[in-house]
């Protein structure tokens, strides 16, 4: 079983990730000779067909890149367009957008923690199997997820591809009383998120630490959603407008995929671990406290612990949602008037899986001339392969089936969203 001279870890269809991809690792003894995260999700060519569309359509169109994190696309789109048009939004609209993002984070993080990732740690194929033995846990998870969705539903009419986000604000903003209806559920959600952190912290984590470059937004006074400088633990500190100067997409021959790298350095990691490590001081006290209680303190360098960090972000998102609801007053107007004028705008926001970059150029009629979208999963791809190159070596003595599952679990730690990533990926259909 162990110590085989050469073997291949192969997963034709990666399960419990969003979109379709496969995994291929070739080993000689305990040496990894090839790693391919294969993406066979077909290209949909968003950046091309957005040309000629009106800027006001960008949030609705780009939402369709990803059914899991449509709000992330809407937020990066509206902020990039507002920058291109040179407009400033109402402070209450800004606050409401944070609430919108809280809803998406709660929904997406709960989905990932309990339904996509936890089954790996506990040896189940899926959440339905998990529910057979731990029905109460899954029922709580479903309620928590639903509360996240209820925020999105209230602000945007539906959970997937909500309809209210607009360049300049929202099509319609809620009353104070409507938001207050969410409070009792959110108070339950906050408590349940704290329990989730404790529950996750008791899982068994493989001993695997790497020296990552963490990249996330950083804001002077808030845990980041829509604004901030882009920073890293290796000295990066830039505005969104400088993103393409400092990051490059490179063509990797073995996978025929474009991977994002920090120019002159290499792979980097975006998402919960990066945000937590770079912004721990901006977390509300309730989130910091439970993180420290379970022994999570930046820098967390073990990829597998991202499940617990995601749970800490659940605590943050619930607490932040409650804060926004307390402070919210309906704006005088749901959105500001929009000029048609030529311009270029870039924005980065924090999708549940990490930073999402949009750049648009629009002409004097308000039509899109060029669009560029770099999703978080594409930014993590090179890092995922780097991790597997290292981690698969640690598993050389493991039976193949268990080693394969462990590698899948490592990939799932990134909560990869392949549907998103494919809008720029080189897609290879392996017909061998």
């Amino acid at each position, binding site marked *: 079983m162990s110590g085989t001279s050469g073997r291949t870890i192969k997963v034709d269809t*990666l*399960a*419990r*990730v*969003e*979109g*379709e991809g496969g995994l291929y690792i070739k080993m000689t003894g305990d040496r990894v000779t090839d790693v391919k995260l294969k993406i*066979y999700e*077909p*290209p*949909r*060519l968003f*950046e*091309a*067909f957005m040309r000629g569309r009106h800027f006001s*359509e960008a949030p609705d*169109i780009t939402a*369709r890149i*990803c*059914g*899991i994190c*449509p709000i992330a696309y809407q937020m990066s789109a509206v902020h990039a367009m507002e920058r291109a048009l040179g407009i400033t939004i109402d402070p209450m609209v800004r606050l409401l957008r944070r609430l919108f993002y809280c809803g998406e984070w709660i929904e997406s993080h709960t*989905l990932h923690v309990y*339904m996509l990732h936890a*089954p790996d740690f506990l040896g189940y*194929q*899926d*959440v*339905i*199997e998990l*529910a057979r033995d731990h*029905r109460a846990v*899954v029922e709580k998870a*479903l309620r928590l*997820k*639903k509360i996240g*969705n209820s925020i999105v539903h209230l602000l*945007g*009419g*539906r*959970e*997937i*591809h909500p*309809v*209210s986000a607009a360049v300049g604000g929202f*099509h*319609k903003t809620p009353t104070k009383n409507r938001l207050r209806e969410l409070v009792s559920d959110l108070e339950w959600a906050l408590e349940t998120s704290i329990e989730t952190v404790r529950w996750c912290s008791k899982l068994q984590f493989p001993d695997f630490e790497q020296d990552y470059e963490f990249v996330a937004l950083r804001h002077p006074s808030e845990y980041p959603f829509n604004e901030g400088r882009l920073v890293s633990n290796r000295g990066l500190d830039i505005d969104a407008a400088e993103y393409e100067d400092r990051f490059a*997409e490179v*063509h990797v021959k073995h996978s*025929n995929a*474009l991977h994002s790298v920090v120019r002159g350095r290499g792979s980097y990691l975006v998402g919960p671990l990066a945000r937590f490590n770079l912004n721990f001081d901006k977390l509300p006290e309730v989130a910091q406290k439970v993180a420290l209680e379970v022994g999570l303190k930046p820098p967390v360098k073990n990829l597998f612990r991202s499940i617990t960090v995601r749970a800490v972000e659940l605590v943050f998102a619930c607490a932040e949602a409650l804060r926004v609801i307390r402070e919210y007053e309906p704006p005088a107007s*749901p959105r500001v008037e929009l000029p048609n004028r030529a311009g270029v705008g870039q924005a980065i926001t924090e999708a549940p899986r990490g930073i999402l970059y949009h750049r648009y150029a629009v002409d004097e009629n308000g039509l899109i001339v060029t669009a560029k979208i770099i999703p978080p999963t594409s930014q993590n791809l090179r890092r995922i392969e780097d991790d597997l190159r290292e981690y698969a070596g640690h598993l050389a003595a493991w039976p193949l089936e268990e080693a394969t*599952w462990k590698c*899948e679990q490592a990939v799932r730690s990134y909560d990869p969203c392949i549907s998103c990533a494919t*809008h*720029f990926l*080189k*897609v290879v*259909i392996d*017909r061998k």
Partner: protein
Amino acid sequence: MSSEAKPKAHGKPRIGVFKFASCDGCQLSLLDAEDELLGVAGAVEIAYFPEATRTMLKGPYDVGLVEGSITTHHDAERIQQVRRQCRKLITIGACATAGGIQALRNWKDVDEFVRAVYASPQYISTLKLSTPIAEHVPVDFELRGCPINKYQLIELITATLAGRKPNVPTYSVCLECKRKENVCIAVARGVPCLGPVTQAGCGALCPSYDRGCYGCFGPMETPNTASLTSQFRILGQNDDQVARAFRSFNAWAWSFRKASEECERT
């Protein structure tokens, strides 16, 4: 080719969920049905659903749910295999039923599109058209929406397993809007709205959020697109704007496609 539903002699009906070019949102609707998920999972065997489970069982399946459009040679072959394995094949969402937003390539030079997005276009294998599933294989039921309505999905699964016709209306968004007692934004405020020609299913969401319907559920049965086009022009919309309105998430659906092409001809 599509065989009639035969109730299984024993065991739970087996369901498969298959993805083609899409955003994953329609299959996520199943996981978003938080109150119904465990109930559905108890009533069926989820035999193939990679987004949710590592268990991937071979066909045949009693019901296949298909998300996404056909955009590659590989997928054009794969849908044939999927069809052969499914007693009932149901398409879910605008990509599967109308080609999706990625069907905007259908009016353009796809090679130029690929060059615009990818640095090494020679590695990209893609078809000139993004097409709905029904252009490739017989489909037993098409569930509309971008995204689908999760309650319609639960109704559809329930009805299919019971062997009855699903209760999914084909009338327009206007009826839903009236039922919600919304003031008509097109009449009262002059906002261009696709509600009169779009199939119901969303609950008249956009008019309820102070904006015009943008057609997520595709054309209703017998839509009068010519009349709506004239109305849009009266509201001050130019040909480009009208064409864009019809040409979004259900652009390749026959009547929306014709309506947008009419605008280009004038």
